[in-house]
């Protein structure tokens, strides 16, 4: 990038909000995926107007621009793989308003998901999307990736809570979509189009979300199974039983053993699978739902069922699930958390496949799943420094995808496409779908400067 262009960009945001020193560029060369590339400059704009001015320069000069929040993406969405400008939105971190009467909140993109959760909870409300990274993930990032989380089983994902956006387009124009009403059928639904576009269509600078009343009560159940197939069959049985848990999480034996090795929580290591179930809602209906679920669990041969007596016990039960990620991460230097998702009725078949593929390639794979919605997170652990092992890991990832698609599933339930899954897009989307998507991209960003090198 030319020196004069850098200076021009620096003048837009101010010298203390622009940097091109190599140390700083390194810190913006990655997210939680393996690929890295340094940008040429990092900017920390404070307003929509500044971002619009940045985009005008980038558009004129045809410079790649990669928007970024906390950089916790698992598929390389925020890696500036073609260099250029990183627009980091973390300094735009104000909750602009929370409207308790119309149940909406308006926030800037740099607001941290959990910070919003805490504020709305004080007013008796809830913002359901709860990605595992919620303590650091920004609202802008969760909208751009249409993030889900454990409780999306019952409540839906980010797009289901999104009412309106302000978005700066590739040429610097400012697009306003949606509004503050729950119902809105005026024109195309551009809000949902931007949601999940991973920074390829525009830069999100303001977000209006829908809130819901916080459920007054919740219950937690753990069930242990001697056979993994019983465990995953139980998931389908619960989902068919008429009650929808807030979360329904599955851990296989490999994960349970890893947790016990690292954290010694007293989990049974002779079981093949454990389910953790959270129900929430009104106190009066929870008792009945628990009975229904208990019946499904017994029908599917659960060896042991624990229903938490109080919130402290519930907290202890959930600790096992929260420790699962860290336990897997501690096993080996590297981890890929896969994200293939299948219809819940095919969960057992998919789990069987994952295990078989891992074994065949002699690769360690533990299975964690937001089981209720068929969203698997096979955790593949390895050492990237071992070339041969890394090749086998890649083979595992490549084989998982056609299997998931064959079962009527998808490449990615919630982690996104980014760089990681871009090569596989054509297996799921046919040529018509791909060309419609490319057409949309060309209209929004004719010069291809927004987050280039990704899936579109």
């Amino acid at each position, binding site marked *: 990038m030319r020196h004069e262009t850098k200076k021009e960009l620096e003048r837009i945001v101010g010298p203390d909000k622009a940097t091109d*020193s*190599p*140390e*700083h560029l*390194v*810190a*913006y*060369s*990655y*997210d*939680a995926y393996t690929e890295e590339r340094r940008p040429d400059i990092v900017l*920390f704009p404070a307003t929509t107007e500044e971002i619009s001015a940045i985009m005008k320069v980038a558009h004129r000069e045809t410079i790649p621009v990669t928007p970024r929040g*906390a*950089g*916790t993406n698992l598929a390389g969405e925020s890696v500036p793989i073609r260099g250029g400008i990183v627009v*980091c939105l*973390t*300094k735009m*971190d104000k909750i602009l308003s929370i409207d308790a009467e119309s149940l909406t909140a308006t926030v800037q993109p*740099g607001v*941290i998901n*959990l910070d919003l959760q805490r504020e709305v909870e004080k007013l008796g409300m809830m913002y359901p999307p709860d990605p595992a*990274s919620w*303590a*650091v993930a920004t609202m802008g990032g969760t909208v751009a990736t249409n993030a889900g989380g454990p409780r999306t089983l019952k409540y839906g994902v980010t797009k289901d809570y999104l009412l309106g956006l302000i978005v700066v387009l590739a040429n610097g124009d400012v697009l306003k979509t949606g509004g503050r009403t729950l119902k809105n059928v005026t024109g195309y639904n551009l809000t949902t189009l931007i949601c999940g576009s991973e920074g390829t269509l525009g830069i999100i600078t303001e977000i209006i979300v829908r809130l819901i009343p916080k459920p007054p009560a919740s219950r937690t159940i753990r069930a242990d199974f001697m056979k993994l197939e019983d465990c995953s069959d139980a998931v389908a049985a619960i989902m068919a039983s008429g009650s929808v848990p807030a979360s329904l999480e599955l851990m296989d034996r490999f994960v349970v053993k890893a947790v016990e090795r690292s954290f010694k929580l007293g989990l049974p290591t002779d079981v093949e699978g454990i389910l953790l179930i959270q129900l929430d809602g009104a106190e009066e209906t929870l008792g009945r739902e628990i009975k229904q679920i208990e019946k499904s669990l017994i029908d599917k041969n659960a060896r042991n069922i624990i229903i938490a007596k109080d919130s402290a016990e519930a907290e202890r039960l959930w600790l096992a699930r929260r420790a699962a*990620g*860290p336990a897997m*991460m*501690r096993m080996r*230097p*590297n*981890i890929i958390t896969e994200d293939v998702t299948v219809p819940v009725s095919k969960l057992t078949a998919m789990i069987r496949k994952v295990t078989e593929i891992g074994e065949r390639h002699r690769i360690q794979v533990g299975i964690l799943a937001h089981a209720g919605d068929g969203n698997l997170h096979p955790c593949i652990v390895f*050492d*990237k*420094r071992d070339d041969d092992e890394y090749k086998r890991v890649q083979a595992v990832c490549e084989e998982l995808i056609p299997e998931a698609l064959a079962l009527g599933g998808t490449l990615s339930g919630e982690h996104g496409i980014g760089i990681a899954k871009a090569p596989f897009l054509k297996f799921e989307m046919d040529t018509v779908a791909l060309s419609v998507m490319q057409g949309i991209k060309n209209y929004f960003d004719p010069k291809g400067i927004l987050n280039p090198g990704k899936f579109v």
Partner: protein
Amino acid sequence: MKGNKVVFPESITDDLHHCFKCGMCQQVCPTFKVTRQEYYAPRGRVQIVKHYLEGDLELTPTLEHILMSCMLCDACAALCPSGVRVDRLFRNMRVELDKYTTKKLGKKLVFAILRNGERLRKASRLARIGQKFLVDTLGTNSKMGNIPLARLPRITSESFRQKVPEKITPEGKRSGRVIYFTGCATDLIYDDVGHAVLRILGRLGMEIVIPRDQVCCSAPLFLSGAVKASLPNIFKNLDILDRVDADAIVVDCATCGAALKKGIPELLEDLGLDTERARRVAKKVKDVSQIVSERLDELPIQENLSGEPLAVTYHDPCHLVRGMGVAADPRKILSRISGIKLVEMEGSSECCGGGGYYQFDNVDISAGITSRKKRNIMATGAHIVATGCPGCRLTLRGNISEDENIEVLHTMQLLSRSLTNKRT
């Protein structure tokens, strides 16, 4: 081999490959929370160190600033899902930095003074005069870092250790024997804490040995990368602490405690030196609150029945809560003192923004961290902040104005105040 040649212990270098860049550390990092910039987050710093070792980055003032802007509060290491020992990694990297450092003259001088007990006492006498002179000439509003000169603690006229006997025997039956490692702060600035500790341990029937030749624990040196310079002090203290026979080694300074308990054994291990003696000493090191809370019932605590209890909040020093794993004991003590009511603040274990030279080197970041802490303190409505570290005490008092009328005290001072005068 490509890369910058650094002698790091292999186990620490291996940690670099275990950081898979999840970014969860952002949520606890005080410098990231204030700046929201990745190079001030643990993940950013770890990756920068990795790239430096791989030869993609040079030692520059920017790199130095990034590494020295870490508070070493240890919150990230405690949280890291992959178990990366971030604190240890940075400490080792600071050694590397020390070879090239652009360290300011002032800091070099402080290190030279801390290394020598006699020099330190002389310097503090000089500083006492200088302090008065500065306030007189510059006025009370001028600041050192973020702290108005008038809110800095007054240096004591005489060293605490020189004033008190080297061995204090209890009046009644002896219930134990401890070594009191006073640290430089109690010796030269906060002798009020020293007297409180002696009074309380005395009431518990402890025989107290206060070796006069103990020296600076050296944490300010080795945490800044001046490892070689720190070793003579470390060995001297280990000699003394290992020689004297005692049930425990008591500290009232969280930093000294964390250094003796964890920092020094790890440092010697990283240097490939013998750690046996350091570990033997470490086993005996206890924060004074740990000793006292076990035997709280034996203390003659005044029952104060009159009036509304005074609200007190507790700030967890990084070096106490994470360095030594002590959080419950001070709270147990505070809850026992009659006439006060413990009100927890939000984020009590978050760093206060001070620490060694930090607040003078990183004025803006430090001010941002401290103002978060101050907001949390003010929200409790407390009149007193209790804590267990002289560095935190200095920072907190320095950033609370006179009008705000909040006292910052060591937990032992509060406890000592509540003891009756009569002997049990």
